[in-house]
């Protein structure tokens, strides 16, 4: 066995993009695309030779070969049905909803510490794009406060995001603290309807505890982190390199999506999916006894 079979629950845009990323993976292969009704997403997966089902999580727990499942449904569905069912079946949950039954995971920051977790949560797109930089600053200069502004094109903010803006700001702020290491976190999200759609941009502002560390060490720490992040999000780049102004470090990053299923301006969706795949690949490597396993 050279690849681990995975299931995806939720055949919408996120699920479809995840599926294309699984196709490119060296450690993962599609075991099931599960929905709860017949849909375009189910038809698309079937036409690509992927096993499909409209029986939801049951179709995945019934497959003994599936060892990892991505949940791209809703927080309520993950809490009530999918999370508990997967846990009982011994399948690792990679939760892309805001449910956060398990710990937050930002792969380049804390995946290694989460190897034994049955359920990991992928925070938010804004969290995946900014927490690595916050952590990179925090590990050399400390972080008393960190604030991010995520700008997402209106076209790539789905109805779930729009119906619950607080979930984004509150979840991201919490993960800035617990994963990024800032004493206090704040997150802001702005949807921009400009045409052609803007790339996802994120501004990261950190009040450091020890500015005497100097910009060079902070910059080197960020560069190292960005290199790790680019390994799974190739479209990640610094738009404005870090600037140190008193005790404030300002950095602006941009995320261009890989265009697997969604357009390249949807860097927000690409980065959370890429992070989920990166986590699954390392967990799978551990299952397969390959080097680099989590």
């Amino acid at each position, binding site marked *: 066995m050279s690849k681990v079979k995975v299931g995806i629950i939720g055949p919408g845009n996120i699920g479809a993009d995840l599926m294309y990323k699984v196709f490119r993976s060296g450690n993962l292969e599609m075991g099931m695309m599960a929905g709860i009704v017949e849909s375009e997403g189910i038809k698309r997966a079937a036409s690509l030779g992927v096993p499909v089902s409209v029986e939801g999580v049951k179709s995945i727990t019934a497959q003994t070969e599936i060892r990892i499942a991505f949940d791209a449904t809703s927080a309520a569905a993950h809490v009530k049905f999918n999370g508990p069912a997967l846990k009982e079946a011994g399948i690792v949950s990679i939760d892309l909803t805001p449910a956060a039954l398990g710990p937050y995971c930002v792969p380049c920051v804390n995946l290694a510490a989460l190897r034994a977790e049955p359920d990991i949560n992928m925070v938010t797109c804004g969290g995946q794009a900014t927490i690595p930089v916050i952590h990179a600053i925090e590990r050399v200069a400390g972080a008393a406060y960190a604030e991010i502004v995520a*700008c997402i094109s209106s076209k790539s903010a789905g109805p779930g995001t729009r119906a619950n*803006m*607080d979930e*984004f*700001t*509150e979840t991201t702020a919490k993960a800035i603290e617990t994963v990024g290491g800032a004493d206090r976190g704040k997150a802001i999200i702005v*949807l921009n*309807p400009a045409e052609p759609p803007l790339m996802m*941009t994120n501004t990261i502002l950190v009040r450091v505890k020890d500015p005497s560390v100097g910009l060079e060490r902070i910059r080197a720490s960020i560069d190292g982190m960005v290199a790790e992040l680019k390994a799974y999000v190739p479209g990640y780049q610094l738009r404005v390199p870090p600037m140190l102004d008193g005790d404030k470090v300002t950095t602006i990053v941009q995320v261009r999506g890989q265009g697997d299923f969604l357009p390249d301006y949807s860097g927000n969706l690409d980065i959370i999916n890429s992070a989920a795949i990166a986590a699954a690949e390392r967990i799978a490597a551990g299952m397969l006894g390959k080097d680099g396993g989590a």
Partner: protein
Amino acid sequence: MAFVTLVDMTMRDGSHALRHSYDCGQVAAIAEGLDQAGVPIMEISHGDGLGGSSYTYGFSKTSEFDLIRAAASRVKRSKIAALLLPGIGTIEDLKRAKDAGATVARVAAHVTEADVSAQHIAAAKEMGMTAVGFLMMVHMASAETAASEAAKMESYGADYLNMADSAGYLMPEGVAERVKAVRSAVKIPVGWHSHNNLALAMANTLAAVDAGAEYLDATLRGMGAGAGNTQLEVLAGVLKRRGVETGTDFYRLMDLARDVVDPLLQRPQVVDNGSLMLGYAGVYSSFLLHVYNAADKYKLEPRDILVELGRRGMVGGQEDMIIDVAYQLSQAGVS
């Protein structure tokens, strides 16, 4: 006689002009004066709404909840409103504002993004607050789009619908067209909010009244983002001359502006060149002072930053992109 409701924002939009430095004593004095002058609603929040205190929009000197509490302790008849932009502030912030004494929630979204306000409008109603749907940057959409987005906010439970020309870009005919279109699309009353960047705040407010607007935003001395807003005490006088009833005491408002607000002003509230460019290029008025800071830091002409922000289609809340634009312009200058 026709009646319109005046909504004072001296302690919200006006907060931009003071770089969010209000203290409880100042707010209590203004609130008491507005209450005695019969202004029905006064809005108190960070200039960018609840939760706006940040690096990006400027830190508040005093917590907005303390400011609301200070005003509530002096107010007998007026209602206190809080502004909330989903994405910046949260329902949790709104709860705290209500606990401090706010009874009106104004929930603001970019003119094409009304659906982000559904949850917050519903939460305001559940808490027993008056809920206002607030469309920002209305110059960036057609009257038809503004009307359909307004109808969404009505469907979420808004008690009235406010439109803001946040960039001070529109001409009176553009105001009239939008107010009429929205009035025909919703059953709830419609309100209007001007910025004076092209010196049209008063003319546009009158155009809104003529088109049927029933709520009007204004601030004492016109204090506000960019060149400021419609000047409240002037509006009270103008509407008196027009034969429109507001229930406010014109002389008391004049005195309040002179005695309490004038001593607070940090800079003259005029149409300076930066403000003029906001209106000309259609840029969110709150950007102004941040643009001056960035221009200073990068040795750039503020006008060039503003034009580029307008060209990129930046919307309310994207103050962080001022640094991006200034950085990119300074790099372009070097190479």
